[in-house]
């Protein structure tokens, strides 16, 4: 079983320490906006990359830093010079510690205001917009640990949002060659390496309709023993490619087209087994799907 990466824990400690030093508030870190409407989570599949932050909806809201910070880099869409196309639109990167940096992207063009060096936590950075590659106004917020070269799940550092909505596991499959075979009770599989794929997502509590978000982790156990775990706590580059969690899985090893999550690859042995998939969100809500399978030569 893979273990959780150390990077988020270290960064969490740094950020909390910074927050306690810099802000006289009950919470160490604060949300960058007042209305906390999460519309995208860390680790989601974005076609050619993992989503390296969270999306927060609510167009036009003022955006504040999560902590006092120094400006490292900014880009005002349509005004500043750029040598490359920036899908992030207008953005600011702040530095809170020699290695911890936060990104506030898709800000309204022109909302960044005059160039300045520092922002206090209650200063206004800009306003939520939809500059760059954004389908609707939202703030893309990301946390980078430059020492470990990681993007970290911001929800691990921000004050928790009330969430009583468990993730959903709609379907469970085994990948057999180029086919997805539904995994129901009594499913018969061949021995050998088999990927377990799930249509699973977390749900937003504040909307009645289905708004799928990536869960924070998925664990597969076989006959009561955890055999595979994928977690979206950090993203790191390994071999020139972004990978997720401590298991360092590339995007193609985590996501299948259509938003299907590859929960793990099992080495199946002949016999009857109890397979269990547990999917969790950051609040600890859990969805479980258990099936009995037969592995027949």
């Amino acid at each position, binding site marked *: 079983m893979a273990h959780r990466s150390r990077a988020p824990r270290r960064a969490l400690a740094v950020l909390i320490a910074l927050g306690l030093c810099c802000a006289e508030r009950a919470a160490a870190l604060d949300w960058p906006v007042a209305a906390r409407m999460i519309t995208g989570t860390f680790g989601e599949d*974005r*076609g*050619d*990359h993992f*989503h*390296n*932050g969270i999306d927060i909806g609510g167009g036009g809201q003022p955006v504040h830093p999560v902590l006092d910070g*120094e*400006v*490292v*880099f*900014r*880009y*005002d869409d349509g005004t*500043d*010079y*750029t*040598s*490359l*196309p*920036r*899908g*992030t639109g207008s953005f600011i*990167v702040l*530095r809170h510690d020699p290695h911890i*940096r936060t*990104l506030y992207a898709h800000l309204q063009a022109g909302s960044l205001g005059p*160039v300045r*060096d520092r922002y206090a936590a209650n200063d206004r950075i800009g306003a939520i917009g939809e500059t*760059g*590659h954004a*389908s609707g106004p939202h703030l*893309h917020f*990301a946390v*980078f640990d*430059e020492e470990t*070269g*990681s*993007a970290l799940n911001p929800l691990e550092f921000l004050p928790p949002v009330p969430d009583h909505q468990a993730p959903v596991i709609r379907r469970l499959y085994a990948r057999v060659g180029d086919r997805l075979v539904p995994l129901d009770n009594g499913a018969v599989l061949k021995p050998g390496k088999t990927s377990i794929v799930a249509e699973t997502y977390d749900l937003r509590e504040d909307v009645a309709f289905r708004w799928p978000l990536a869960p924070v982790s998925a664990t597969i156990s076989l006959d009561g023993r955890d055999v595979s775990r994928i977690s979206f706590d950090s993203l*790191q*580059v390994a071999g*020139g*490619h*972004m990978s997720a969690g401590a298991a360092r899985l590339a995007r193609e090893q985590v996501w299948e087209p259509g938003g299907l999550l590859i929960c793990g690859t099992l080495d199946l042995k002949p016999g009857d087994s109890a397979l269990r998939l547990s999917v969790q969100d950051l609040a600890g809500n859990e969805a479980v799907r258990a099936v009995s399978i037969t592995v027949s030569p």
Partner: protein
Amino acid sequence: MAFPGRKKRPARVLFAAILFIVFYFFLFPYPLGKELVAHPRWAVAVPDQPPAPGEPFATAGGPGISSWQLGDRFGFVQEDGMLLYSGRAPYRVALSSSGFVSYARLGTDWILRDRTGRLVAGFPVSGYPLLSPDGRRVFSVKTDLSGLIELDRGGGALWDRDFPTMITSISVQQDLALVGLLNGTLVLLDRAGAPVLEYAPGGSRVAVIAGDAVSPNGSRIAAVCGIDPQYLVVLRRTDTGYEAESRERLPSAFRREVRMGFSPDSRWVFLEGASGPGVYDPARRSMRWLNLPGPLAAASSARFGRVAAFASLDSGGVTLALEPPGGIAVCREHFTAGRVFLGTINGQLLAGWDGTLARIDVEEL
């Protein structure tokens, strides 16, 4: 004892010497440097409306064609001032000397077109396009600035590389792609996308790459890096790779991308400074700053790279400065305009402002 004859000798010698000097200057005159003057060759109005799809302005001509861009308007012009294409980008445009990709903000498919607007290839990708200056290399920049993909003409990935943090700047020349990162690292990629060099200049309190450039012949790379202090670093290619050639402390503290590049002959680096552009000679380690009234808005060259061209933009308009590095200013003109473009055409300056394009040749008087 007197020697009356000797008194006249100094006068004769002096006369002969003066005569010799006068004749010497007549016979072997020291050539004075010729004065350089800016000579406008032509000016054309950029049409307001692009041609209908499939109706190019003209068939592609020979050499001496350059691209131009003024805000969301872009196109190609021949050295004689004939417009080959003029279009308006729905969102942005990736331009090269041989073609363009005009793309929408949320589109997932791009179309590469040639200089007359004819379709060359389609790319079903989810990033934003970036073309090499000659147009032979097509890249997709991941929209979160985490990576770069080079594409073949069928839209397939030749290579795909992610970086541990955000990309802040990119410069592409021939087989090299130089990527500047938020963490203060420069990554130089070869034609296969493999890192040739990973270099963190360091020395500043805050590490960041604020701008980078690869010289046209690949012999040098340069970057503006760090905050407090900010440095210009130049690396030179050697038999074994690249090594630091010079490091210049800058008076600036840019926290955004800095406009910079090399002269066509790869000898000079130009860069945006705190109060005007700078021209840097890495071999002599000499920097020359120019004072312009507003922030640098465009930079290019004339006279086959021997004269640097800068344009600044302020509320009063555009100031155009033509100065040979280390030489005397050719001209400095101020005119009313809201936007400006500088490029090169046939080694000379292609300038654009508002709705006008002009070729300005710098010649010896």
